[in-house]
Each structure stands twice: as structure tokens, then as C-alpha cells.
């Protein structure tokens, strides 16, 4: 067992671009679920709408990425309205089902062979990354020798990504200590009480859905930048579920909960993955092949993930930094 490589690869994943993506997605879910009590299970859809718009505008019409990003954010807002209008007056689980369905609609439509001329079908789109690569200020590897090392492009994506995370956290922090944020939190606790004070609960929920969706949209943009390509497989339903796990590990309704969650989640997932990969690899594996082969080893981290999510929700729903009283929400 090579503990050192296990540690370095886990650290690199915990700090790397993938953790940034899930962190941003979880910040959006924090606004939805943590602060307002909305069950958005279609965060992958929000990510995809913005990411795909930006990339498609760049590859089809040669737009700049900035312009594509702006249009993508507009589409994200429209998407949030389409989902919110029918469901925000209903019980919480209706929003859950509609958002998960809408995310799947977007994914299957954009990945369809019929539109492969524009969106590249299941392969997705590439060849838009030039302008972003061109402004990369890094020219060499960055890192602490012996702990982690990132290539020049990865560190550039990380710089942009973690800056976005910092800005998003700042926005969430400022909003949630404002009167507006207090209304959101009280909607989570008791909708009727808020309504009796004359607040338009429907409108506040819609604003929260849009705001959280925009953070999700930034996660979608980062997905495109990380991989220098974008495709439907990056936005499967499980992406949303993983983002929820990230949020719940760190602690919902805490500004820095998603950040801590993303670091811990990706460290553990990679450590588990590497451990089982090493334990089943080589000529004399630690775990004999009749118990577990290399394919099965790659599943172990997801088995632990599912188990972990269940145990977390049962025994410590507030996560590491959360406050249990803040998560006393219930479906209506």
C-alpha cells in the first residue's frame, strides 16, 4: 500500500477543479435547501443550461465566452422560473420531482443524436477553450513538493474557481444576514407565520430558486472550463445527489458548509477509491480477486458514499458545522 500517493492524490482532488464544481453547486443548494427549505433535485439541470449555453454560443456562433456566460445566466433564470411557477405553491416534494424531471429533460434533449450537429450528441462539445487558455498567467507547475502538484492549466482553473467560491460565499453571507435572508430562513421554519406578516412567500421562494440556480450555473461553467469539453454525461442525476452529500457533510445553512463539505467529500472519495484500487491491483493484491476485482473496487467508494449519506442524515443531519435546530424543517 502506497500511503504517500494515496495522500497526495486525495489532497489534489480535494483542492482541485472537481471539488470547486461541487462546492459551487452545493452553495446553490444551500440557498435552496439550507436557507429556504426548497428541495431542488435538479441542480445538474441548472449547471447544464448555463454551461451548455456558454459553450454552444462559442462553438456555433463564435461568441466570446463572456457573452455566452451572460446569455447562459439569462437562460438559467428563465429555467428557474419555468420550474418555480408550477411548483412553488405546492408541497415540497413536487418541486423535488419536477426539478429532477426537468434536469433529465434538458440532459436527454441536449444529448440527443438529433441535435448532434449543434450540441455534439453524447460526445458533447470541445474546442471552445482557446480564449480561456490564452489568458492563463501560469506557465509552470504550482504546488508543495511531496504534498500536491498542479499543472499550469489546472492551477489556472482552480484560481478562477476558488475565487468564484470566495465571492459566492461572500454574497451568501451578506444576503443571509440581511432582512431578505431572515425572511428566507423564516419561510423555512414556518411559512404561514411569514405570510401572516404580509410577506409574499411565493415571490421570496422564487428569488431564492433563481439565486441558488445562478450558483449552480457557475458550477456548470466551471465544469466546461475544467474538462475543456462539455457533455451530457457530466450532468447526470447523481451529480445533484453528490452535491447534496457535499452540502450535508459540511452543514446546511452555514455559509462555509459547502466549502468544508467539498474538501472533505473529495478527499474521502479519492482516498477510498485509491485504497481499493491499490488493494486489488498488483500481482499479490491485499484483497484476493475472488472477493473483489478491479471493476468492483471502483464501485466501493460509491457504496460507501450511499451508506455515508444515509448514516449522516440519520445520525447527524446538521453535518459538521451545522446547527441541528436550523434543520428542523419538515415537508408540508
Amino acid at each position, binding site marked *: 500500500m502506497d500511503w504517500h500517493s494515496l495522500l497526495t492524490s486525495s489532497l489534489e482532488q480535494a483542492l482541485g477543479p472537481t471539488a470547486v464544481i461541487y462546492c459551487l453547486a452545493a452553495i446553490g443548494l444551500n440557498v435552496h435547501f439550507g436557507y429556504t427549505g426548497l428541495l431542488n433535485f435538479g441542480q445538474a439541470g441548472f449547471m447544464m443550461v448555463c454551461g451548455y449555453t456558454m459553450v454552444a454560443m462559442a462553438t456555433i456562433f463564435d461568441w466570446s465566452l463572456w457573452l455566452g456566460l451572460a446569455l447562459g445566466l439569462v437562460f438559467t433564470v428563465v429555467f428557474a422560473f419555468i420550474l418555480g411557477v408550477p411548483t412553488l405553491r405546492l408541497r415540497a416534494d*413536487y418541486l423535488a420531482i419536477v426539478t429532477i424531471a426537468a434536469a433529465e429533460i434538458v440532459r*436527454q434533449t441536449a444529448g440527443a443524436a438529433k441535435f448532434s450537429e449543434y450540441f455534439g450528441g453524447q460526445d458533447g462539445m470541445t474546442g471552445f477553450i482557446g480564449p480561456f487558455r490564452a489568458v492563463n498567467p501560469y506557465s509552470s507547475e504550482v504546488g508543495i513538493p511531496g504534498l500536491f502538484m498542479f499543472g499550469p492549466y489546472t492551477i489556472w482553473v482552480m484560481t478562477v474557481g476558488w475565487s468564484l467560491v470566495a465571492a459566492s460565499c461572500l454574497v451568501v453571507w451578506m444576503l443571509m444576514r440581511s432582512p431578505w435572508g431572515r425572511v428566507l430562513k423564516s419561510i423555512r421554519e414556518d411559512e404561514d407565520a411569514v405570510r401572516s406578516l404580509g410577506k409574499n412567500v411565493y415571490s421570496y421562494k422564487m428569488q431564492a430558486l433563481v439565486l441558488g440556480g445562478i450558483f449552480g450555473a457557475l458550477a456548470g461553467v466551471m465544469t466546461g472550463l475544467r474538462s475543456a469539453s462539455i457533455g451530457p454525461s457530466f450532468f447526470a442525476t447523481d451529480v445533484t445527489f453528490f452535491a447534496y452529500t457535499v452540502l450535508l457533510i459540511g452543514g446546511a445553512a452555514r455559509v462555509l458548509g459547502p466549502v468544508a463539505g467539498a474538501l472533505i467529500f473529495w478527499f474521502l472519495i479519492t482516498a477510498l477509491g485509491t485504497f481499493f484500487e491499490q488493494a486489488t491491483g498488483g500481482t499479490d493484491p491485499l484483497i484476493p480477486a475472488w472477493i473483489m476485482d478491479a471493476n468492483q473496487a471502483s464501485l466501493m467508494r460509491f457504496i460507501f458514499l450511499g451508506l455515508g449519506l444515509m448514516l449522516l442524515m440519520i445520525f447527524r443531519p446538521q453535518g459538521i458545522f451545522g446547527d441541528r435546530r436550523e434543520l428542523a424543517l419538515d415537508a408540508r
Partner: protein
Amino acid sequence: MHAVSPRRLVALVLLLAFLATAGGGTAHAVSSPEGEGTTTPAPAAEPCATIRDNDDDKLQVIGRVCDRRERPQVAVPDVRIVVEDTEGEPVGESTTEPDGTFVVDLEGESIDNLGMTFTVKVDEETLPEDTKPEITERDVTFNLDRDQSVTFPIGDAGPGSAGFWTQALQLSIGGLVFSVLLAMGALGLSMIFGTTGLTNFSHGELITFGALVAFAVDRIPGQISVGGADVTVIFAVVVAFAVSAGFGWLNDMTLWRPLRRRGTGVIAMMIVSIGLSIFLRNIYQYFAGANAQNYSQYSAVTPWEIGPVLLTPKELIVILFGMATLLVATSLLAYTRIGKATRAVADNTALSASTGINVERVINIVWISGAALAGLAGALLGLTQGFDYQIGFKLLLLVFASVVLGGLGTIWGAITGAFIIGLLTELSTLFVSAEFKFVGALLVLIIVLLFRPQGLLGKAQRVG
């Protein structure tokens, strides 16, 4: 990298088969039962030849054109085939031989053409007069040693709409099979929701569980015969039903009942069910692998021709058996004591507890029967179309759509919703390509919620 030696034949085998998707009410569409049909389109009626290998080092497009409305398939001679490159320039053409085969030579060494895409077109003018092709061209990319079978569906030229309606009828059969299975899943989900308030995201895994159990039983060496007939798979389906019931009991006893005791909120339980779904799905893949599987029997059966439509015996059995199961389940809910108790708990838990109904026992029975229905649906689904470790997860959204469409927590709503969604997914392929059939069903869900948020049969209930 010298993957291609110059002497090697690199041929793309292209099967152009005339598939009459609509048998049609027209006389020449279905060969007469005597077999010596006098109205067959190809008078020569030479059986369609298989493609022969050919030993030169040129790159060629080879293939055959067969009329699949006949059994055995007959060759279609004298059809002009044109091969064009990506710019639309013709690079070669040929005419089908009396045995239906054709060969189109391509210019240049084989290595030059690798990775290139060509369009193979059928000249419509040269097709037999009574056929009406829906697609007349296909793009093919040359990859080494990769045979490709391409189907050109061609309907009858007859009076337009007849083909459409027979096609609709044919698709409704598939839709009914799907609806029945969907309804079994939806009924369980809806009952569990009604009695416990839990939106169970791991319900799809209960469906997969049934398919896997049936597969495991089917895999046990030896076969089970009753009166000389091999009934291994039927036995496997029955076992899947029973074991799934036990799995439902286990689910409730080890996880959900303790959670209810602790007073865990329904949203927390929903997230627990997501965790359970991820956990079980990967456990399934751990033991069953990622490949699609089929049972040992009934994976390929010859269909009956009933009028213009084709119906396989297993489709009929699944429809009848599924309908009977649904009827039994709903009758139990409607007329038996425990069924009435279930509906009472779904309506008002506290009130039914105070009238002496053992709520925990009712919920336990709901879990057992819901899981049994889901498992049966999974086993039958595996029987009709094969399965893999995530078949239930793929189906879950459509089950949700059915339940929400009919009205969350209602029994008849779940079944009505399932039939609407099931038929809609299949029939939508009449108008849009098959890859959008799930998208259409999910869109209907969102549109219905816009106008009738409580679902078709749900009670209006203002929230917010």
C-alpha cells in the same frame, strides 16, 4: 501502427433491409397464409442472399437490399445505390443483383478512406412501386473490421393514414406492456407515500431487485419442468415476487420503522432514500456487473400476426397477468379489512390510530406488498426487454411522473397516470424520434402540474 496491411479486405457490410413497419391493410402488405401470395411486390421472389466475402484489396461498400415483409425475406433487384462523400460528390454507384446484393468500389487505398464518412443513398425511383421509404440515406463511417447493419424502414405506399393507424396500434401494444409494469411500480410508490409521507427515491432499486432475483434463480443450473414444459423462468418470476416481498419487509423493519420511531422528518427520510438508492445500485453492479442481461427463455420469440399488428405471446401474457395483478391489488385495497385500513391510514394517520387500527402493521404490509409489486414489475420488465443494474433507476422518473400525474397518494390516480405515461411514451414515437420518448412524458408531467397541480385524481389542497 500498421493495422491495415494493403492486401487486407476492409469492407463495410451494409444491410439495407426493407422493413415494413406497417403491415398495412392493403392487400399486398401481408403475404397470404398459403404462402404462395400472388400479390407479392417482387415477382422474382428470390430468397435474399447472404453477403459473400470478397478477396481484393479495394475498400468497398457491400450490402444487400431485402424486403422484410416477406418470410423468408426476398431480394429486391435493380435498385440503384449511390455512395457520396461528405461534400455530396458521388464516389461510386451500383445496382442490386437479382439476389439483392450490391458492391460499390471506393477509390484509393483502403488506408486513405479509414475514418471517413460516406453517405449511402437508395435511389427512390428504382424501388418497387408500392413501397414508400421513410429514410433513403444513411451515413456510415469506415472503421476497421466493423460490420454495420443498417435498417431502412419502408412503409406501404397505400392510402396514407392506414399506415399511421396500424403503426399506432402496434405501438399501443408495447405501450400497454410498459403501462402495466409502470402501474405496478407506481401503485407501490403511491401507497408508501400515502401511508408514510415518504417520497421513496429507492423505489427503482426495488424494481431492479425483482429483475435480479429472477435472473439469479434462472442462473441456477438445471431446469424446472411441469408436465414436460420448461417453466424455469416462470418459476423465477414467482420467486422474484416472493423474495421482493421479503425485501420490502426487511427494508421497513431495519430502516424505515426505526426512523419513524426516532421521529425523523420526511425530507430527511427522502434524502436517506437517495443514499439507499446509491448504495443498492452500486451493490447490484458489484454482484451483477454492468452488462445488460437476458433470461434463458423467451428472449426471442416469433410473434403472432393478428390482422396488421404483431403480438408476441409473452407480451400478451405480461399484459393479461399484469392487469390481473393490478385488479387483485386494487380489489384487496377496496374490499378487504386490511385494504380499508390502508386507505384509512393514508387518509388520516392519527384518526385511524385512534379508531384502533394498528398503523405500524398497516405500513409494514404496505411496504411488503409495494416491494412485491415493484419486484414483479422488474422481473417482467427483464422478461420483455432485458435488464441491467440500473433499470429501476432509469424507470424511477417515469414512475414518479405517473404518480404525480395521477395525484400523489391516490390509488386509482397512480394507475391512471401510469397508463397515460406508458402509452404516451410509446405513441410519441409516431411523431418524434424514439430518443425523445421519455422527454415527452416528463414534459407532460410539468404541463399538467401547471394547470392541475394536485394531479388528475388528487384532491385540491392549498399550500402557500
